[in-house]
């Protein structure tokens, strides 16, 4: 998906005026021979401007002084070959931009896609100037990210300023303008406040944002009722059941499950719920509050219910003994947009994911539900992550345009903004939004000793029905080898799957109790 990879070069011989120039083509540019003179003139102007620059861009001249001045031409050349366009100094705004050779991933097509989205959803028409500016914006975003990756921070900062200028020419209430705004913001934070690790709110703030994201879009609802369907079916026939929720939040997932268990044929089971969440800083015990309200609901529908809260700042701090799983209980483990946080790895301690999956496996849960963002935001190279996130969150923002209630929509966008910031601004232990695609999770979980549970036609039918009835047109549910995905138009954004532990083929020599202690 590297937009900078150039295609095959065209022939160098026999330059007819309409033919593409071979030298520039090798660098990824389609420039007609007839326009070469034009391009050369522009480059001369660029040189002049940069050398005799007024104070706003004089720092670029400062940079240049570090190099041998006679290398200016080659420096401009290298700029041209690495970037998709010249530095967008206002004088050159009338230059026809060279398009990269690779047609599959290019911002032009992407622009069309997004423009089409806008026409469908919002009756706004991009003017030619706006469309141009949008293309520029995206180009510069990629350029800036590339320079960040290479450690060229001065250039990156200059590009940020440039993009802010471009933003004023673009409609940033919707579409590319809005998304670009958030990504520019994230890059700014990365460059200008490296001490800060993205946007961190209090647990209370996070709950508010989560709640509005829940209301504004179907993603979390889909996650909840798909996971609940798997849990309900796995609990069939069991009288003592225990759900372990790795991110209780406001417990929005559980009232529906409690009610469905209350009225299941044969009567409700004894239900235990263990809710894991971050500790509250303001003295409120929010886990306990949620637990009490869930208990009230369960009581009102005659379901025997017990709740335990586990406050942990990091998921890997949770240990099996804290969960107090009973021997006869049917256990369900629930990870809604959480499992990826365990991919944060500390060189001194290794990857927590294996340890956690290991003790979960020993609990032998009847079902483990995993819902994750369907994206590859954990790639080692910053630019790859950035590009992927730009695509992913553009699609997400597109889908959010269909929400008409405020402040749900505004706060949902901030919720997403925080994810973006984490992916773009943070590194190391602070970068927790380590989304990986379903295929990777599948091989990882298989490797950890789990086998997939087919989500079943019931889950698919329910998801389809509920979404087609109550969400805007454009969302689609798809079934993918026993897993369900929810996406916007043809792009899956969320993937839900269910898993069961494979019993150990060679039991260890000593007896091991569910807490991984050798007895």
């Amino acid at each position: 998906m590297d937009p900078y990879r150039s295609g095959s070069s065209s022939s160098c011989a026999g330059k007819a005026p309409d033919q593409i120039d071979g030298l520039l083509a090798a660098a990824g540019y389609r420039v007609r021979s007839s326009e070469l003179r034009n391009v050369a003139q522009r480059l001369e102007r660029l040189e002049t401007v940069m050398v005799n620059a007024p104070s706003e861009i004089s720092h670029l001249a400062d940079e240049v002084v570090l190099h041998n001045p006679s290398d200016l031409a080659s420096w401009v050349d290298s700029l041209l070959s690495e970037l998709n366009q010249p530095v967008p100094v206002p004088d050159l705004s009338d230059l026809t931009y060279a398009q990269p050779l690779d047609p599959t991933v290019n911002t032009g097509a992407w622009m069309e896609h997004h423009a089409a989205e806008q026409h469908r959803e919002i009756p706004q028409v991009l003017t030619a100037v706006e469309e141009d500016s949008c293309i520029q914006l995206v180009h510069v975003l990629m350029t800036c990210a590339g320079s960040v990756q290479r450690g060229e921070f001065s250039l990156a900062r200059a590009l940020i300023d440039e993009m802010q200028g471009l933003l004023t020419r673009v409609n940033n209430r919707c579409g590319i303008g809005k998304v670009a705004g958030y990504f520019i913001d994230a890059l700014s934070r990365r460059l200008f406040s490296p001490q800060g690790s993205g946007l961190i709110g209090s647990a209370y703030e996070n709950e508010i944002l989560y709640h509005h994201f829940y209301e504004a879009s179907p993603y979390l609802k889909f996650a909840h009722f798909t996971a609940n369907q798997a849990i309900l079916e796995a609990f069939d026939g069991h009288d003592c059941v225990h759900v372990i929720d790795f991110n209780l939040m406001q417990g929005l997932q559980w009232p529906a499950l409690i009610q469905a268990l209350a009225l299941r044929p044969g009567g409700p089971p004894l239900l235990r719920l263990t809710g894991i969440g971050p500790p509250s800083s303001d003295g409120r015990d929010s886990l306990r509050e949620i637990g009490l309200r869930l208990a009230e609901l369960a009581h009102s529908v005659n379901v025997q219910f017990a709740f335990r809260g586990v406050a942990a700042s990091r998921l890997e701090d949770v240990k099996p003994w804290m969960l107090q799983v009973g021997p006869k209980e049917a256990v369900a483990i629930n990870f809604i947009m959480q499992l990826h946080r365990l991919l944060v790895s500390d060189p001194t301690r290794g990857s927590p994911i294996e340890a956690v999956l290991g003790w979960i496996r020993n609990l032998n849960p009847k079902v483990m539900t995993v819902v994750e963002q369907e994206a590859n935001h954990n790639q080692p190279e910053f630019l790859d992550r950035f590009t992927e996130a730009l695509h992913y969150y553009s699609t997400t923002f597109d889908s959010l345009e269909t929400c008409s209630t405020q402040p749900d929509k505004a706060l949902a966008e901030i919720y997403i903004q925080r994810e973006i910031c984490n992916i773009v601004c943070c590194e190391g232990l602070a970068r927790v939004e380590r989304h990986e695609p379903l295929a990777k999770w599948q091989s990882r979980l298989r490797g950890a000793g789990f086998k997939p549970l087919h989500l079943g036609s019931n889950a698919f039918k329910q998801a389809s029905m509920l979404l087609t009835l109550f969400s805007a047109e454009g969302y689609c549910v798809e079934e993918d080898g026993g897993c369900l995905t929810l996406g916007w138009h043809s792009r899956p954004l969320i993937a839900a799957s269910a898993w069961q532990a494979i019993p150990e083929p060679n039991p260890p020599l000593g007896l091991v109790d569910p807490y991984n202690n050798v007895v």
Partner: protein
Amino acid sequence: MPRYDYESRPFPTLWSNLLTPPPPFHAMTSKNHIRPWLGFSTSKALGNFGDANYMEQLLVHCATAIETNDATLVQQILWVLNNIAAPDGDSNQRLTCGFLRALVTRAARSGTCKVLMTTAANLAIATHKFSIIELAGFVDLTPWHRFGFTAANAAILDAVEGFPVVHIVDLSLNHCMQIPTLIDSIANRLEGPPLVRLTVAGLTEDVPPMLDLSYEELGTKLVNFAKSRNVTMEFRVIPSSSSDGFSTFIEQIKIQNLLHSMNREALVINSHMMLHYIPEETLLSSPNASYRTIFLEAVRSLDPTIMVLVDEDADFTSRNLVLRLRAAFNYLWIPYDTVDTFLPRGSEQRKWYEADLCWRIENVVAAEGAQRVERLEPKGRWVQRMWSAGFRRVGFNEEGVGEVRSMLDKHAAGWGLKREEEDLVLTWKGHNVVFATVWTEKQDEAWLGTAYI
């Protein structure tokens, strides 16, 4: 070149372009924003109907959420309902399933929801087209209709004694299923059979049960049957629409009466479960007389010898969806409950029967305006209407009551018979199901037609 100082200059354009800037966090209280959960009220005593009570509450909450466009709550409740209301479960579950489908249909029709073709196709109810034999068999399986037939036949026989010509005007849902038994009793009367003229209102709207043959063909069969009993019968069908209150139908009857006014003719108005399709006051924009009132007054003006009014004892007329849903849920549990006693699980016939029930549930819950035709009113209101239209009650004789009782004895133990003043009421486990009333003209009073308000 000044470095961009994020801390002191927050990125301006993002916030200034939001349509309504969100309130600052400290101004939001969790109470305002955390959704209150659905609990069930524990004030109602949970008897045998504990589960049904919960299901009813879920349906009510769902209906309210649909009316208030609360998409999140609707989705949550529908998810629960889908899991607890199996279409092949016990009678409560099947009842709830019928209501669930109707609510989904209603939601699909409301402005905020969009329906894909596949979803619409899945929701379409396939009602069965009965043959005469199938329908006759059905009618015999349960007292639901036989009760009204038996009671009506006894009263009619009584009233037409001595008349050489009997004109039966049949406004019944069941496509003349009563007629063969009526003809049998008339054929056997002591003074010999009269000439029978049978005029039938063929309802142009498609309401279940649907018949797979035309009324003309049906009429031919009935005339032949009468002939086999030595009864000469003339048959006539008048296509009628409930949407104009059967007014063309009444006009035709008037014309017929004029033509035959020289004969001594008994006019019998025999209506079973059909009059509730005539729109009443809640479908009017003006508070003037409804079609229902106009119809009854028009019937009165025909000077009938006897009018039989049999219908289901429930109130489906509320404009309020939740009240209507409750009323329908608390009545239609009865046919789901009774079906276990006369049709085996999984049988084709049970499917047909319940498909017709689902059609009715959908009509009550998902249809509005003129499309909503299932406008049941309870006995008390019909009695008031008849009185206002100039009719007075006639009781049932003991023989008739006895016949009804012995008919009921042939069916399951839950069926019962109640006498309320001069009326008969069919009950199931003590609950009112169908009422049967008989009327004749109020003669002695100076009668002024009263508009029912």
